[in-house]
């Protein structure tokens, strides 16, 4: 299992029944493959649909039906489409139960940076700032470190996406919950020690008692 898959399988355990969830482009999109049994989730794509499904059979792609990255998707029975005003009314208005986003950095206060690297990469915030402000829960799904650089840091060196504290950070090494007191190490990946996590983390971690191994979703479903 590669690290992205591990992260996606762990994040999937955060899904709750009868909720509306937005998955960011890239790694977060994988989460849809691992929705736990007995859990019914509606996925929103911010370009204007609730209830999208896996890519259609070859030759049946509809150029009017894509995800926020421009990739072809299908619509499940009972889907609803709408314009960008409605889409962000859902997001900013508190109607979205959870969003899963990629991250460039998260600091000790739980603040996320994920939309630009000044002078290097300026993709733009797209819907990320609205998602972080508006979703009831914000899960950051990212590699623990990049090119030897810690991504969980004492303070952001990149422009923040929001001043809101995110709900949870899931990496291939650990599950970390930003709290009022700091970054609480909740779980470690199978076979990963607490010391290894500390070594790859650029901010102080709160460690209370034994840190359990992270559970993950084992079964793969063909939902989206």
């Amino acid at each position, binding site marked *: 299992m590669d690290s992205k898959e591990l992260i996606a399988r762990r994040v999937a355990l955060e899904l709750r029944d009868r909720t509306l969830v937005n998955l960011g482009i890239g790694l977060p999109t994988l989460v849809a493959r691992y929705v736990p049994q007995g859990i019914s989730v509606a996925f929103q*794509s*911010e*370009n*204007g*649909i609730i209830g999208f499904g896996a890519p259609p059979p070859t030759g049946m792609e*509809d*150029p*009017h*039906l*894509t*995800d*926020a*990255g*421009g990739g072809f998707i299908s*619509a499940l029975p009972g889907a609803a*489409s*709408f*314009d*960008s*005003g409605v*889409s*962000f009314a859902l*997001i*900013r208005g508190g109607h979205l139960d959870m969003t899963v986003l990629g991250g460039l950095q998260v600091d000790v206060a739980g603040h996320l940076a994920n939309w630009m690297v000044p002078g290097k*990469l*300026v*993709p*733009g*915030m*797209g*819907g*990320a*700032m*609205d998602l972080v*402000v*508006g979703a009831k829960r914000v899960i950051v799904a990212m590699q623990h470190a990049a090119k030897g650089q810690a991504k969980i840091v004492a303070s952001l060196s990149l*422009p*923040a*996406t*929001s*001043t809101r504290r995110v709900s949870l950070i899931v990496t291939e090494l650990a599950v970390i919950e930003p709290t009022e007191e700091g970054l609480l190490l909740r779980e470690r990946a199978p076979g990963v020690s607490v010391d290894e996590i500390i070594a790859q983390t650029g901010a102080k971690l709160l460690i209370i008692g034994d840190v359990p191994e992270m559970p993950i979703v084992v079964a793969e479903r063909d939902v989206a």
Partner: protein
Amino acid sequence: MQRAISAAEAAALIPDGASVMFGGFMGVGSPDRVFDAIVARGARGLTIIGNDTAFPGVGVGKLIDAGCVAAAKVSHIGTNPVTQKKMIAGEIAVELIPQGTLAERIRAGGSGLGGVLTPTGVGTVVEKGKRLIEVDGRDYLLELPLLADFALLRAHEADYNCNLTYRLTATNFNPLMAFAGACVIAEPDEIVPVGVIPPDGVRTPGILVHHLIERPR
């Protein structure tokens, strides 16, 4: 009722230097035939307002490639390296706007509001130069209305009255922009007789649309 115009006629209406809103999300739901005609006309100095700059050679990306664009107000340019290159070279002035804020600013412009208060962007670089307004102990950014000389829409069906429908995620910013262009030009996939689109099926009342592009042949 008036006749539909060609994409070339539409492009001829849009002078160099105009501000142009365009529907589309990564090129999906964009007025592609009008874009091609604008490129063919060799337009220069346009300010484009929309969600993103799509990809090189796709959607509004064609206007970027062809050097038609002087400024872009968008939420995302990450999928178009040409935009990034021209921004760094100082050829295109890019204003990055959070996507939900962009939608609200266009809606405010089209619906006669003086602005909206949004929590999005508070405490980030987005708040630079904007008024912070406190309501019930929470800070909001005052975001101002956006209007444009032209709004270029991609529709699915249009009837002879210019009533419009859209299709799935090709809807995106199109219905909002229909209110915010001084001249609104819609490029439909199909044109149908009056009455084919029932009143409850209309997503943009035809009264908002100034010109319809003829059906692709």
